[in-house]
């Protein structure tokens, strides 16, 4: 017997058919889209992130759950208007650095952030420094920059971007988080980033903390 509510478990299991059935049933019953998202679906994806960190889930399992989540988001998001609309927790610009084409981990983080209430601008892979800067300039106020690198050689792009953020006069309002397999805390501190997380679920926790700091 699962410890999770049925909808949350269906997200964890990546059972898209069941997720859509339950979401539609909940909407019929009058459950708010915001509640469906934040009380059931997001905890499901956070658990998926934890299972990946524990070595229980791998990329195919994560993609399966992500697909179920996307299917449900397609129903609930358009319903969120007016007072029920998702209040943005913060704004994130995210991308894999120049030269790095790996995106599955980055996509998972982007999805979890979005599902957790962040407004996310995903720039994709092999993102040039200028593209990061332009995206940051386009958003007013506090913004979180998330950079990922999955191979050691592309790590060198991160301090380049950080320097560009400083030279553009944006560092005061941009918080920077970095991630990917070769990223260590030591490296994060060395390049002057504000934080790193070991897995997607922790990345959301970090982003939330940075958004509020």
């Amino acid at each position, binding site marked *: 017997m699962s410890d999770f509510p049925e909808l949350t478990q269906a997200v964890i299991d990546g059972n898209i058919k069941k997720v859509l059935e339950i979401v539609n049933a909940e909407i019929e019953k009058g459950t708010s889209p915001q509640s469906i998202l934040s009380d059931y679906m997001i905890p499901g994806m956070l658990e998926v992130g934890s299972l990946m960190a524990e070595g229980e889930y*791998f990329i*195919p399992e994560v993609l399966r759950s992500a697909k179920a989540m996307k299917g449900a988001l397609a129903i609930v998001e358009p319903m969120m208007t007016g007072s029920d609309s998702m209040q943005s927790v913060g704004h994130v610009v995210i991308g894999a650095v120049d030269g790095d084409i790996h995106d599955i981990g980055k996509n998972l983080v982007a999805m979890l952030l979005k599902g957790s209430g962040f407004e996310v601008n995903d720039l994709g892979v092999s993102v040039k420094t200028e593209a990061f800067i332009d995206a940051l300039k386009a958003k007013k106020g506090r913004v979180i920059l998330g950079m990922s690198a999955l191979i050691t050689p592309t790590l060198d792009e991160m301090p380049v971007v950080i320097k560009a953020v400083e030279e553009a006069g944006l560092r005061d309002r941009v918080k920077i988080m970095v991630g990917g397999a070769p990223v260590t805390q030591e490296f994060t501190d060395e390049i002057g980033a504000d934080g790193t997380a070991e897995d997607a679920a922790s990345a959301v926790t970090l982003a939330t903390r940075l958004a509020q700091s």
Partner: protein
Amino acid sequence: MNKKERFQAVREMRAPDCMPVWPRVMSQMLYSNGYILPEVTGQDWYDADKVTNAVLRSIKEVGYDVAIPSYVDYGFGVPPLGGTISIPEKFGLAAGTTDEQPVMTKDDWPRVQKMMAKFDPAKTDPRMAGCLDVIKNVSAAVGDEISLVPMYYVGTTAAMFLFRPNEAFLEDLFEDPEWVEEMVDLATDWAIDWISAQYEAGCNSVCFTAETMGTLMMSPKMGEQFNLPCIKKLVDEVKKRHGQATWLHIHGDMKTPKAFEYLEKIVKEAGVEGFHFDENCPADWIKREVVDKLGVPACIITDGAAIVKGPPEKIQADVKAQIEMIGDGLGLMMAPSCQVLPATPDENFKAWVDATHEFGTYPLK
């Protein structure tokens, strides 16, 4: 000892004169010769002369003990089947696949199956024909002195590269596992024929196959389901057709109980002779758990960042520290991490090879 004898000693768990070194991928040899990948290959062409020169120069000047004269390239076969490959410049490991693959939906599968039935590795893809010319050239030049190793992927990795966009294939694993089994079976048969063509062109040593999803991208349970039978089929066929053993390159953390159980099956049930892991497996673990416990030789991996960045003195110190962890060192050879950029200077590779030979003189200190 010559390079061939050195490698043979590792395979037989005897002491070589010094620890042999596995080469880095073709694209590094090209970069160090002043070429970028688009100057050497395109969607339907391959400059065999340039690649031959790069391979021979690398063997001579860097001093690798084994040669993989084919281009470690996961785009082979894709353009004739209807896909488009990408040919990167910066950080480009090899020509690779894009989202325009031969099998975009299941409706494309019957057409591709028919094309695969007629595929001739020596003729259908001009890039593969060029690669075979390189093997012939390198074999003629140095085949007596050095082990020439044929190489291609197997199982799910081979199927994904040949047929499907990456993310779609990973979804297929759950959504249509029977179709995945068809794809991995056909891809493995194709890989076996491609490897055979490389032997016929002049390769003269173990087969090197790679399953890069390993336990990095999929669970050991999925690996056992989809890949174990394919690895066994390839090992058996290479033995039957060419009398050669097979080494497996596999990614992921093999230290967890379930992953190690999978590894054991790869040895005991599939018959793999040796392993080349990635950076998740430290040298002392490999010696203890793979060489001593499973009884098969393996490569130990130097940290990729060290080789990329240097300086040579740091590389030498890292190699020395690594060799100090491996006891008698029998059954082990040195290999580069998959994270090493092709654009890493030869000076760093040379420092790494020389340090391995120097600190890896047997008996190890």
